[in-house]
């Protein structure tokens, strides 16, 4: 290890205790990637602080030493946002798992960043509340990670993303100071830009989340169609009718085949696509709208509709969808998960183009998507034992992103940019756009030590030496009058 890191490791041990600093190369390797396993880097040092003050002290040590650092929650991210630096410190929040406060009358809870997403819901469910963001990894992902990635999930179609459910964050700034960012406090909405900044603006140490009332009722149906086009037409018809479902999910024939092989979800045989539509809310609303949804699906050509009679049947319907990613492993030795977004109305054209891409290249693509908000998760299949196969799959995966951009969409709907997609950012944004975003980063982290190398393909020069400021502050005499 670099002498500089060795010395820093010793100082970190003095701060948090030797048990909570890892420098052993074998143990360090446990942390060499997040959920995006094709990017790996063994961190220089891993530290597991227990309190916000310790996180702040660790960041101050890193800043003083000029060493980069990366925060990590549960390591479930899919864009390499928590990919460590070999020359830096990985700050792991897994000891900070306390739910500090539950305020039902105020419909909020205060949690530490390492708290597991689903544990928030478990803690408040007895009061009739839950934490709405529901990324697929919610059983293991952390709320701090949700904040960094602005996580969504199947139900964000109706309920919005993490940004809409976080009221305030205590953060450790890249100066190593504790600051309170709140959507309601006077001044800039720094919270709004911090959430979803992928850990590049600081580390959150305490999160006030909004709690959502559990809906009175939930209704779920599964509709099977001959083709993907017919399923897409049903989605358009439902949204066009003014229905806002809690979720609309779609799978194509190949992903159904994979799910069948993996979990025997017993979706209707011969389906070219299946749609899962879930409505929730007050009983009389859901009853009326659910009948509309059923009719619209039939009108669009659904040859079979199954309605979940209870939670058990609902779980059965969701089983195939929820297992789809992992299930693809049953029909292909390896695969890439893509995360593009298109305007919902472009769904038929884009899917046809993906089909064509697949046919031209001979690379199979299984389509699973959050159809209601146009968020595609094409799974690009390849055999990693075959020379050049991964490169061909990468090429198809990149071409799908180009399709999304061409149709006015986005290169990522929920997985984030991280290290995986920073090279695609210039296809979606101009140099000036990216430069402007990085002005925020320069404000927070002029030294560029906080999760560097993520989101942006090239760092912006902040035009100011961090640290000591000389001369009077430009606001001196004008500000803090009150």
């Amino acid at each position: 290890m670099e002498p500089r890191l060795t010395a820093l490791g010793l100082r970190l041990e003095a701060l948090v205790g030797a048990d909570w600093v890892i420098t052993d190369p074998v143990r360090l390797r446990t942390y060499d990637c997040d959920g995006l396993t094709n990017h790996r880097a063994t961190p220089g040092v891993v530290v597991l602080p227990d309190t916000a003050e310790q996180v702040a002290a660790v960041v101050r040590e890193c800043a003083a030493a000029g060493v980069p650092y990366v925060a990590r929650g549960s390591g479930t991210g899919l864009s390499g946002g928590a990919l460590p630096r070999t020359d830096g410190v990985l700050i792991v929040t897994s000891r900070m798992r306390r739910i500090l406060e539950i305020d039902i009358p105020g419909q909020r809870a205060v949690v530490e960043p390492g708290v597991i997403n689903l544990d928030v819901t478990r803690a408040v469910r007895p009061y009739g509340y839950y934490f709405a963001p529901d990324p697929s990894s919610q059983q293991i992902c952390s709320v701090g990670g949700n904040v960094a990635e602005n996580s969504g999930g199947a139900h964000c179609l109706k309920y919005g993303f993490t940004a809409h459910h976080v009221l305030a964050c205590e953060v450790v700034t890249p100066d190593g100071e504790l600051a309170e960012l709140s959507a309601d406090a006077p001044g800039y909405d720094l919270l709004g830009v911090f959430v979803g900044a992928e850990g590049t603006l600081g580390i959150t140490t305490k999160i006030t989340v909004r709690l959502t009332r559990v809906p009175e009722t939930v209704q779920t149906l599964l509709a099977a169609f001959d083709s993907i086009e017919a399923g897409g037409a049903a989605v358009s018809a439902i949204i066009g009718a003014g229905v806002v479902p809690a979720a609309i999910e779609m799978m194509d024939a190949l992903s159904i085949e994979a799910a069948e092989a993996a979990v025997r979800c017993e979706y209707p045989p011969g389906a070219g696509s299946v749609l899962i539509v879930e409505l929730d809310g007050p009983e009389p609303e859901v009853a009326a709208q659910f009948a509309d949804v059923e009719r619209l699906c039939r009108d669009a050509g659904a040859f079979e509709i199954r309605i979940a009679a209870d939670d058990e049947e609902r779980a059965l319907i969701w089983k195939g969808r929820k297992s789809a990613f992992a299930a693809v492993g049953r029909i292909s030795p390896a695969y890439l998960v893509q995360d593009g977004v298109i305007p919902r109305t472009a769904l038929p054209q884009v899917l046809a183009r993906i089909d064509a891409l697949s046919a031209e290249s001979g690379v199979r693509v299984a389509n699973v998507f959050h159809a209601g908000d146009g968020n595609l998760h094409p799974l690009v299949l390849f055999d990693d034992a075959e020379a050049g196969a991964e490169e061909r799959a990468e090429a198809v995966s990149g071409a799908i992103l180009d399709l999304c951009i061409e149709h006015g969409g986005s290169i990522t709907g929920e997985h984030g940019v991280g290290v995986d997609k920073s090279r695609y950012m210039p296809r979606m944004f101009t140099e000036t756009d990216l430069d402007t975003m990085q002005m925020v980063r320069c404000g927070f982290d002029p030294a560029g030590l906080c999760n560097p190398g993520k989101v942006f393909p090239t760092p912006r020069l902040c035009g100011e030496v961090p640290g000591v400021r000389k001369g009077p502050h430009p606001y001196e005499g004008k500000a803090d009058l009150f």
Partner: protein
Amino acid sequence: MRPLDALAKVCGDVRPGEPAEGVLGVEPALVAAPKNLAEAADVMRVAAEKGLAVVPRGAETRLDWGTPPERCDLLVDTHRLDGLIEHAAGDLVAKAEAGLPMERLGEELAERGQRLALDVPLPGSTVGGTIATGAAGPLRSLYGTPRNLVIGLTIVRADGQVARSGGKVVKNVAGYDLGRLFCGSYGTLGLIVDATFRLHPVPAATAYVTCAVSGPEDAHDAVQTVLHSPVAASAVEYLSPGTVAVFLEGVPDGVAARARQTAELLGENAEVAETAPDGWGRYPDGTTLIDVNAPPPALRDLLTMLGPEAAATWSGSGHGHVGLPAGSSPDDVADVLGRLRDALARHRGGAVVRYAPEEVRGGIDVWGPIPALALMRRVKDQFDPDHRLSPGRFVGGI
């Protein structure tokens, strides 16, 4: 070349400012009204070259909010930037220019059964001004404020460069969300030129359920009862001098059933109505307007502190307004403000003065405590290193 001439070369509508156009009393030297993004960028570039302090102006409905600018060399008026650029109804998305009045946007969207789910507390206000002040009304309980509904933003920076963030899809985590940063930034970071919004369908049916309440405890109980019930209200409001009103949206049968259910929850003096009660979605009367926020249960302390006569509204989302009458002395206002802040601080809330007569404004702390002010200054310094964008209009002299 004189600034006026330099601006006139790039923008078709440039003239000297008039005394009546003062921003909180600060008269602009020049007024420019660009008609499109290119002109707006050119105007901002010329302003940078000439070192002009720039204050953006929409329909002037909230130009008296905040604190006076230190100087105002150029008002950039957005009234010619008033187009609805795109309404992609199938995608529930619309892109509108900053100067488009909110009501006109609403009318155009309604033609295809859709809406931007933001109230318009001040008639005539524009898209850009609504974003710049983060304005919202009762619907914020369910749909949030501009920060929740802006999905893409085009701005012109202090140096005249055009920058975009977000896009035209709702689900998008590519890059920093500058849209949220610009919401409520009072024209101090850049000129907002257009915005793309997430839309919602116009509900097929709506209803209001109102009920008279007597005193803080009663008001608190009524609001809490509705908040924790399954009726899924789109808004729950307390309106002085003693009404709790619930707004329901949905399908006709659903709304009717839920209205009955809500009325039962609120007790025997609850009434169901098709139209909104007086004062709904408007700021309370008075010449001083104070914006208050705290978790919903703070309502009890708020009303106890204010007393029964005060003009106030409070949303179940934990946000409200207090109006103080004309003739209140600076000391009176400072006293109320101080006690409000004390009461709300117990709930980790706060109070900000939106507008007040000049003699009052000079004698009070408009913003109150500002956490993270040092970070805000650093962000401001990056966007506007010369402090030419609405200088002094915002917190801490920003």
